[in-house]
């Protein structure tokens, strides 16, 4: 009876306080003391810890824990801090440009009823392709801006589908294996749909094993309809593809159609000014087709001192402006990655090479990676990236670009970035 009372009390205490890691540590000590005094067995102590941990995690996940409001229990924070040394030099430069930069991002996600709501802030100015704050102007203070704010909904009758509206992170809603077209910092505004799941036959069985269909579509709003200008630019896109995944091999293929409205005959904010007419009035409408692919193999180097989750992957992107009257209308990128798929846990690493050839009017110059000649088109580039996790979520990275022009005769430039990233 005494044992039952002690077990019950211990369980209650644990249930109430395990939200706090420090309390959890104290409870471990309490349970150990009870074990040493032969009041409970070591396994009873372990069961109490395991069961309570799972119960509290379930309650918090479902928002049913009695101590906190549901939306608080379902709240998740994520963020990262990056400190960067950057070296830039054109062949004609006498001296290189060197600078220090910092990036900070913080996001908060929660559930409100049936929908997910998320918002994030980031350092940097208004440029959608950069969240860096440069060390300059005698310790000048930096800006924090709204990086994203969205509402996401999964219809209960179609669990494969996610709908999002607001300003949101792009990657789930438009996949691209390279940053030839889309800088990783760009969080579009508007609405999108992402769907992924098995292709089923009439009896509900998967038609192809280990294979998902992917379908993305959306309307992205690039500017507002003002009183004087009702022709706001929009992007409508549709992407369809397949993803194959098994233990030692994976592949992803997708085709994308981009349709821009009201882009022709206007200028766009944050343009890199390389498209034809970018500084006066854009000459084309930039409707285009894209094709993307990635193919990965694990354990391809059985005899080498690499680990089981080491992976080698090849990827490629291709874009073509559908206006056949344009001379410079193609873009392509390809590359390979070697190492771990995610660089997160201590000792994980990834080496990546990427080649990009993006002709002048293949795509709008407002979106490509800003580190490749400030996001310009008419660019040919080699990039090598090495990332290594010094500790869990602490990543050291080196990123080198060699960029050149396709048509215009400007100098080859070199860009080196040395990063320390802490994720949380």
């Amino acid at each position, binding site marked *: 009876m005494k044992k039952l009372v002690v077990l019950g009390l211990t369980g209650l205490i644990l249930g109430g306080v395990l939200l706090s890691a420090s309390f959890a540590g104290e409870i471990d000590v309490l349970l150990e003391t009870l*074990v040493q005094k032969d009041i409970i*067995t*070591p*396994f*009873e102590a*372990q*069961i109490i810890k*395991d*069961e309570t*941990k*799972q119960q509290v*995690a*379930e309650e*918090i*996940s*479902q928002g049913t824990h009695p101590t906190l409001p549901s939306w608080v229990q379902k709240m998740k924070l994520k963020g990262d801090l990056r400190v960067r040394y950057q070296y830039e030099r054109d062949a004609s430069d006498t001296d290189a440009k060197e600078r220090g930069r910092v990036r900070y991002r913080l996001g908060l996600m929660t559930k409100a009823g049936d929908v997910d709501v998320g918002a994030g802030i980031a350092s940097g100015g208004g440029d959608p392709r950069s969240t860096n704050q440069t060390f300059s102007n005698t310790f000048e203070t930096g800006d924090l801006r709204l990086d994203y704010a969205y509402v996401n909904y999964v*219809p209960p009758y*179609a*669990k*494969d*589908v996610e709908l999002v509206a607001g300003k949101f992170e792009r990657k789930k809603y438009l996949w691209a294996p390279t940053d030839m077209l889309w800088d990783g910092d760009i969080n579009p505004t508007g609405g999108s*749909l992402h*769907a992924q*799941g*098995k292709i*089923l036959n009439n*009896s*509900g*069985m*998967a038609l192809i094993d280990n294979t998902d269909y992917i*379908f993305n*579509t*959306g*309307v992205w709003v690039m500017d507002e309809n003002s009183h004087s200008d009702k022709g706001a630019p*929009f992007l*409508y896109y*549709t992407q369809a593809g397949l993803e194959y995944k098994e*233990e030692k091999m994976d592949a992803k293929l997708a085709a994308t159609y981009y*349709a821009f*409205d009201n882009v022709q005959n206007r200028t766009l904010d944050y343009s890199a000014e390389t498209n034809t007419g970018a500084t006066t009035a854009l000459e084309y409408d930039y409707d285009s087709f894209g094709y993307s692919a990635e193919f990965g193999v694990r354990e391809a180097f059985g005899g080498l001192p690499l*680990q*089981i*989750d080491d992976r080698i992957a090849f990827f490629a992107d291709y874009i073509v402006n559908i206006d056949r009257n344009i001379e410079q209308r193609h873009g392509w990128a390809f590359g390979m990655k070697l190492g771990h798929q995610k660089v997160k*846990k*201590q*000792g994980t690493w990834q080496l990546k090479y990427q080649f990009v050839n993006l002709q002048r009017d293949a795509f709008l110059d407002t979106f490509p990676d800003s580190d490749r000649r400030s996001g310009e088109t008419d660019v040919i580039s080699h990039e090598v990236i090495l990332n290594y996790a010094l*500790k*869990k979520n602490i990543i050291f990275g080196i990123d080198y670009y060699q960029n050149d022009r396709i048509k215009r005769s400007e100098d080859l430039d070199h860009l080196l970035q040395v990063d320390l990233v802490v994720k949380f």
Partner: protein
Amino acid sequence: MKFIVNIILCFALLCAWTQTGYADMLQIKGSDTLINLVQRLAEVYMEKNPGKFIAVTGGGSGTGISALINGKCDIADASRGMKAKEVDQAASRGVTAKRVVIAMDGLSVIVHPDNTVKKFTIDELGKIFRGEVTNWSELGGKDASITLYGRQSNSGTFVFFQEQVLKGDYSAKMNRMNGNAQIVEAVKNDSSGIGYVGVGYVKDASGLTVAEVAARAGADYASPLDKYDVKSGKYPIARPLNQYVNGSPSGDVRAFIAFELSAEGQNIVEEEGFFQIPDEYTELNKKLGF
């Protein structure tokens, strides 16, 4: 016009979707520590139940739990408990993970027979695997650098040892091996090596020493090979070997687990080098009707 075309495409796709289907074969996936044991249990079960098919694969506890959460298996073998993040992922996908304990393991610390250091406290093991003690002479042994052999991060054994012994990060110098058998072979061939494996991989193994472990300095040392030390919890890194299922098990899943927990199943557990479950975990299993 483009907008309307996109909306029509979305609607057409939405109308076409239905839910995922499942194959008839019972799929079990997860812990490499459990794989030999569960394969043997499955073989005997299938012999006794013609027409029943069970596929058992490894990949690590994390892989098994992930497969259960994603609806890719019926039973996840796990040599550790579920992490809060996994519980959260399960809940978000409508999976209610329930645990059954099918065997006990004395997680065994192994060294080469030539090594004179054959007893460790938990604190000493933590310092060794965190990389704070790097030479056997610091523990009264020969003057030789310690070579560490452990598992990869998707392994439940990796996580359990980290939580119960290291309480910190593994040394970056630890060799991360694919499985228990690889660790056993590595330590057999390395007179300065130390590793940790499930007891089922060392019970009858020759060419290595299974170390005794004490919970703290001054406490009694205990061996994972002594079933009473393991079943009583005196051996400080004894652990339950779990299976997770989605919700209260029924049908073929329930029938197979019932067989694992039966006297015949538990005899197979011992034949495979592990230990039968103690009373505490028997009581726990009763919550699921076993």
